[in-house]
């Protein structure tokens, strides 16, 4: 009953692959998504650098990418993936669609976090004669930091879910293991083990995010 067809090496490899995919796509996705989210907030009507043209392009664009289910995005952009990493299979091939998936998601989360900042503080900044960059750096970001950390936590957990589909392009990872061995080969041990690992991973990341946000807020 407890027999399984995979080795612990395979398991470890899968965990590392998941962490790799999540880590790299979170990092690059944040590099793209955070500035994008800031851009959304400052160019929106009434923002510190109001720019109707840019906002009306950016806003629907993010919605369009966000409308695609990840599994479709994954196969739809194979040509793009191939152009960037010169392959359409494997872990690195999965990372490209993961980034494209998560960057707009992060942008939206960042936008929401920044919009929560008390408008009175931005008014005070403007009254002090702060430049738009100073408003972002000295007022907007410090006030939103706790909320931003929680947003990135949510994004990370979303990414873990998405990596389960990376198996479609041979990306590997814990989710792939669950589908290939646990589901398709009826290996209950793999199924249960991967679910437990995912639960631990998600719980751990959420607690880490909460603790960090609380520590940084201190108020």
């Amino acid at each position, binding site marked *: 009953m407890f027999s399984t067809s995979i080795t612990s090496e395979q398991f470890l490899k899968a965990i590392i692959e998941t962490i790799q995919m999540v880590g790299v796509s979170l990092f690059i996705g944040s590099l793209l998504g955070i500035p994008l989210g800031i851009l959304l907030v400052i160019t929106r009507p009434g923002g510190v650098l109001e720019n109707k043209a840019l906002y009306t392009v950016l806003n629907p664009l993010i919605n369009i990418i966000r409308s695609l289910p990840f599994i479709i995005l994954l196969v739809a952009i194979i040509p793009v993936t191939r152009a960037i990493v010169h392959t359409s299979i494997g872990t690195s091939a999965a990372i490209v669609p993961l980034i494209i998936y998560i960057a707009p998601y992060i942008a939206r989360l960042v936008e929401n976090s920044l919009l929560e900042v008390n408008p009175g503080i931005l008014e005070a900044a403007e009254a*002090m*004669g702060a430049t738009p960059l100073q408003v972002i750096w000295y007022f907007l970001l*410090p006030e939103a930091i706790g909320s931003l950390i929680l947003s990135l936590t949510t994004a990370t957990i979303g990414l873990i879910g998405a990596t389960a589909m990376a198996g479609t392009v041979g990306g590997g990872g814990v989710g792939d293991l669950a589908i290939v061995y646990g589901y398709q080969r009826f290996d209950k041990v793999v199924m249960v083990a991967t679910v437990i690992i995912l639960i631990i991973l998600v719980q751990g990341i959420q607690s880490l995010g909460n603790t960090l946000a609380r520590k940084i807020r201190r108020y």
Partner: protein
Amino acid sequence: MIELRNVYKTFTRKEVKIEALKGISLKVEKGDIFGVIGYSGAGKSTLIRLVNYLERPSEGQVLVDGYDLGAYSDKELRAAKKNIGMIFQHFNLLESKKVFDNVAIPLVLLKKSKAEIRKRVEELLEFVGLSDKAGSYPSELSGGQKQRVGIARALASNPSILLCDEATSALDPQTTQSILQLLKRINAEYNITVMIITHEMSVIQEICNKVAVMEEGRIIEQGSVLDVFGEPKHQTTQNFVKTVIQNSMTTSVRRTLKTEQGSRVYKLNFAGESASEPVLYEIIRSYNVKVNILFANTTEIQETTLGTIIVQLQGDPAQLEAALNYMKQHEVRVEEVKSYVLDIDHK
């Protein structure tokens, strides 16, 4: 010095035009504590936000120290704003930063050195009486303390003008008092021109030397606080004055008042010098007028005593006329109170 020249401000929200300001002209001289009072929706917040160009006028000019803010480039405007401090009703402090860093922000924006910032912030915290709170977060402070931090922050860049947007409206009366005294000290010690927006007449009474009364986007009355308090012309102004100075007879006095032949009721307003002269004694002695005091009150504004007495005078008509002239010559403002008897007495 602040000058507004025929300023209009129109907002367009959902295709509906709202005229917030309709032709405002006013002048705040250097060293003034200038109060703008009005009910909510009168346009006073829009007015003060024009002075540091948080709002741009739709028409007209805003001049600060003689320069038209509308003629400035964005960069010049930002530089001009460093010369205008502002405090807010809800303080608008950064919750994520300690008191010290909140006060330091304007200096950080000016790229001052660390040592310079430390020196100035410590000096400011000392001035507002919060030296021991430098390491606290705003959430650990009371409302009054938060406003002191706001004041210290507003003063950090050494402005010559301080704008106060309903700065005491979220505070209890006692805290309001201490903040007002602090504003008075700032005005006196640093010679900073202060402009205050409020809906509380007591704020005007306490510290302002000049006042403008606003209603529906217009200034309906303005002048020295003494003049406006002593002789409010507009009904709204009278209502505001009434909130701090009682100047009418009580209902029970009016009810028992006898309307005798040849007797008339007058309201006598004294200000400054005239308040210290024995005018009533004179009219009784020299003109043989009977005086019945129905109401009396004195208030101090701008270190000047403002007195109101309502009297019933009785006597020979010619003598009465002479007595009234005598009082007018002695700087007493005399105004006849007609309809003083309550209607119910006639029924």
